[in-house]
């Protein structure tokens, strides 16, 4: 892959709004998880809920997009000066030359879940104020983001469950490479809803405690919401020192099961190998791995096997889902931003909640955060349906 410049980025999760809050929490090893009290959900589990999402007002012109998912998107876009960066890029390149590629698994389906409680008792019809296109549909996030900046370039949503917003980086890089666009707004937003909370509970994949990735006693995920965005542009021949770059991406399929990973991590390994090949790097060039690490027994065992086979115990690695929870379709973008923070702040993030790394998984697993300069980080994102994506980010010397 031709390296792409990540010229702006932001993330909002239960750790807080924006990069400073995220970085401080990662440094201190804090978790943002809390017992589930979302909406009317009564489940014995912990969640990652973003503060003040419903206080976010959308611009009046975009009122039809109003739903929790797009409120969270707007909240993130207005953090860390990200919106100003997109507007400056629009001035540089023109609104036709900027693509919008975003990942989500459930978009604004909460809106539909709530609308089903308000069906007409006689006809069964949904309420007139319910707008499928601008809230429920997976494209609503891309359409909202595009309209937010009045962009007119190509756009789509990627929806491959929990790998969605990693795969948008790869898709945007391809279209930058073949000259269709000059910049891309990429990212991921997923928000709490009944479908995912009750759904993961039905699969017995939620933990009754805060999730404990890679712990010997791990027993499930903490469902969370989050939003992260990045601005991609073609990298100059000599990027300025400290610039964050997308160096490679690898995508693969497990071809194994709808909701369980391949036990040997075959698909995961193919994605990581693909990312290394795409970046023209060897395993020895990677300084930190942000694991998918959902904290289910099956995911961490399978991913751990694949990482250990490729990297051995040489590379420090951690899942940051003990801090953020599993932000599902937003996880790829959230964790790419965490890698960008790690690269620019000499930070190896730890794993809040994890106490005893699983002795059956031979990795250099980081329990607590520490300072160490790193040049290149790999981030894993795997999803239902066996969809895998690994990204490699680097920092210019």
């Amino acid at each position, binding site marked *: 892959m031709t390296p792409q410049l990540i010229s702006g980025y932001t993330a909002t999760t239960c750790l807080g709004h924006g990069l400073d809050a995220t970085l401080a929490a990662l440094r201190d090893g804090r978790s943002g998880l809390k017992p589930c009290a979302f909406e009317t959900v009564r489940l014995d589990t912990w969640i990652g809920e973003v503060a003040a999402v419903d206080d976010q007002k959308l611009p009046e012109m975009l009122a039809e997009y109003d739903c929790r998912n797009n409120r969270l998107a707007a909240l993130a876009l207005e953090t860390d000066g990200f919106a100003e960066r997109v507007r400056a890029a629009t001035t540089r390149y023109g609104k036709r030359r900027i693509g919008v590629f975003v990942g989500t698994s459930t978009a604004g389906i909460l809106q539909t879940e709530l609308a089903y409680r308000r069906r007409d008792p006689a006809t069964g019809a949904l309420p007139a104020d319910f707008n499928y296109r601008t809230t429920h549909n997976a494209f609503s996030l891309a359409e909202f983001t595009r309209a937010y900046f009045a962009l007119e370039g190509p756009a789509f949503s990627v929806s491959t469950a929990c790998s969605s917003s990693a795969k948008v980086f790869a898709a945007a890089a*391809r279209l930058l490479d073949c000259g269709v666009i000059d910049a891309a707004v990429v990212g991921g937003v997923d928000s709490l809803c009944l479908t995912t909370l009750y759904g993961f509970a039905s699969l017995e994949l939620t933990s009754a405690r805060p999730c404990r990735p890679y712990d010997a006693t791990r027993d499930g995920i903490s469902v969370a919401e989050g939003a992260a965005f990045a601005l991609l542009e073609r990298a100059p021949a000599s990027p300025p020192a400290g610039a964050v770059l997308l160096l490679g991406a690898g995508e693969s399929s*497990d071809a194994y099961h709808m909701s369980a990973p391949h036990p040997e991590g075959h698909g995961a390994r193919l994605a990581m190998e693909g990312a290394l090949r795409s970046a023209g790097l060897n395993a020895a060039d990677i300084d930190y791995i942000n694991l998918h690490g959902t904290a289910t027994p099956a995911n961490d065992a399978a991913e751990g096997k694949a990482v250990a086979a490729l990297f051995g115990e040489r590379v420090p690695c951690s899942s940051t889902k003990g801090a953020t929870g599993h932000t599902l379709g937003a996880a790829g973008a959230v964790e790419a931003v965490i890698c960008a923070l790690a690269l620019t702040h000499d930070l190896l993030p730890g794993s809040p909640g994890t106490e005893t790394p699983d002795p059956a998984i031979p990795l250099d697993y980081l329990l607590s955060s520490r300072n160490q300069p790193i040049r290149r980080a790999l981030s894993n994102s795997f999803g239902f349906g066996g969809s895998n994506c690994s990204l490699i980010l680097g920092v210019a010397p």
Partner: protein
Amino acid sequence: MNTAPLSAWIDGIGFLAPGLPDWPSARAVLRGEQAIGSTAAALQAPAILPPAERRRASRVVKLALTIGLEAAAHAGADITKLATVFAASGADGHNCHALCEQLASDDRQISPTRFHNSVHNAAAGYWGIATQSQAPCQVICAYDASFGAGLLDVLGQVVVDRQPTLLIAYDSEYPEPLHSKRPLPDVAGIALLLTPERSARSLARMAVSLDDSVPTTMAENALEALRAAVPALRGLPLLDLLARGEAGSISLDYLPPLQLRVDLQPC
């Protein structure tokens, strides 16, 4: 726009729509050799699905696999190694309705199968299990622009990654009450196998660019009704040229006013 067009060879086609059960019948209708049928789209679970998945296969899964396999067979491609791009304007509408109905009831204990079938990439997951392909698999949604969005991502993979890539664009209906909010008529879809190099099977070469052109419509009313009603069938004007084996320039509806101009040169 000062961009060179994105080029690819078309090696295989799959098709399914109401009254048009496969590509040969659609081709004959597009060539004016026979009239469009009047039956609803007929679906079968492909035999390559393992028994457990065949039992759980929904209408969208059957649809996506059927047209994808038809295009791959038409091209003589090895499905165990093919990269894929699934483009759909929505997920499984019947499953979505059942989930929302149950989550609005007093008993919210949904079934695990309902939950994993609810993801937008369910059909792609079943495709992987059926074909055993570990190749990259993309799943896109762009509401009414989903065909164009899928085509754009396939072209990115063909042009940049230099790999044959199968586009599977498909849509399925919602039951009421969602049907009133999103009135898709039936299952329908188009699959295209695009490759970076010309092969013995190549049917035509396409060159695609983004512009403000006016989308091409279908001359025949029934076909135009399908093109307009089903996002996945926005690609019909391209199939029209392919059916006739004619060179031409058409415009596919994408994100108005941004459209996909396609110049087609048959082999």
